[in-house]
């Protein structure tokens, strides 16, 4: 496919823009994209990855035809830094760490798309980490408990349940 802007170079960027529920498809080459200041993943042409993200985020609300719920979601505000979800979806960046809490509902689909995953499994700060380690163990045990129940291995299930109780007690004492 040839770039729709210059008609010369092959189009390497394909994306859909939704403005007021109107869908427009773009097929352009990198240099035209850069000239137009359009979004190119991983470039520093002013917008870059953030515009791409904002495209994705906009899609979440606008894709459903700008329902009342979607416009309400745009107005959700982070009480710590004052950023709204609408602003976040335009900038593609959070204003502060509390934004993660206030915008939480909209984040799973975004993270799923960007990372293929929604939950952190890596390094944990040591000082804040003990509780988190416990909680991860508990989650794991809960999974095993569920499995044991499904397979009607009730003795095992009882063991898992006791281990979970013990860990929960330890967390409470911290």
């Amino acid at each position: 496919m040839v770039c729709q802007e210059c008609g010369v170079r092959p189009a390497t960027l394909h994306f859909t823009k939704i403005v007021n529920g109107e869908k427009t498809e773009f097929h352009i080459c990198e240099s035209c994209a850069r000239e137009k200041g359009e979004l190119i993943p991983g470039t520093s042409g002013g917008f870059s990855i953030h515009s791409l993200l904002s495209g994705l985020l906009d899609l979440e609300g606008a894709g459903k035809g700008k329902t009342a719920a979607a416009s309400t979601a745009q107005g959700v505000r982070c009480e710590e830094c004052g950023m709204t979800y609408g602003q976040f979806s335009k900038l593609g960046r959070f204003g502060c760490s509390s934004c993660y809490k206030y915008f939480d509902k909209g984040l799973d689909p975004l993270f799923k798309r960007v990372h293929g995953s929604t939950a952190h499994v890596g390094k944990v700060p040591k000082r804040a980490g003990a509780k988190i380690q416990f909680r991860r163990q508990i989650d794991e045990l809960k999974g095993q408990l569920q499995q044991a129940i499904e397979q009607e291995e009730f003795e095992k299930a009882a063991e898992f349940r006791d281990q979970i109780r013990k860990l929960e007690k330890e967390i409470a004492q911290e």
Partner: protein
Amino acid sequence: MSNLRFTEQALSEWMRSGGSHSEIVISSRVRIARNIQHHPFPLLATQNQAEEVMNVLAPVIDQGKETGFGTFHLLKLDDLEELDKKVLVEKHLISPNLVNDSRGGAVLLNEDESVSIMINEEDHLRIQCLFPGFQVREAWERATAIDDIFEASIDYAFDDRRGYLTSCPTNVGTGLRASVMVHLPALVMTQQINRILSAVNQVGLTVRGIYGEGSEAAGNIFQISNQITLGQTEAEIIDNLHSVAIQIIEHERNARQRLLTDSALRITDRIMRSYGILSYAAVMDLKEASQRLSDVRLGLDLGILKAPSISVLNELNVKTQPGFLQNLFGEKLSSTECDMYRAKLLRETLGTTH
């Protein structure tokens, strides 16, 4: 001309020793992004808030004191000359972003320039470790050790479920970006590069040219880095990059050998010509310089050339950048003058080695 020690020399101390696979892997880099709890991210921070962040972070690493990773120096962006900033970017010690968009921006650099800790870039803290050759695991080990130093006294913005909270959703979780800079002339020449790059994209990695995020791959040098930061452990991310890089290195090796067996005369001619032109030209733009230096680097690896050393080439890759030329020959160079001084520099460096 500048007197800043970090911008006087083109080659950081860390670049002098090769590391493994240094004929293909130029350097390995790890960056981790961190933020302090209850402070707005740099995007929204006022000048005062940004300075507060600097005052909290900078003292964690005692300046002028040995840390086990060398002695660190604090450079505040506001105190630097424009040209120094440009050169620090060309040496990959700071990001263009820290120069352009930052309030209260600063960097802590250790003596051999293998560690640079940026303050108030897109995130409050970005710890970057650079190693020569293929040492991405070593770079991660150093970065995480420095992270531990900060973590001992800083309350990071961290969430049970989302991990380290970053300004951009693409960094959340581990905050880890690991990359290797690789020289892949044979894959480019044999036109296998696109196939390989798209395969790399499919396994959660991304490839770009070296200078600036959007730039073309100057001199056949590419940067391969992880795209995913959430849902994988740091070890998985590093291992994935490591094993993909190994495969690319092998492909490049094979392509080089094939070039040598199938078209030895043509490739030898190309390399010798490039060496000749670098040694004698009077005008040379950056693009040509990068390409010819790439040929010479290949020539060294194939045994077609005996000189110069890899470290001289690494040095020339940095020195031929505009900021560095201005630093050497005068701040107000027109682009024609730049091309002339670039040629002069190349002549004087390479013309004497044969």
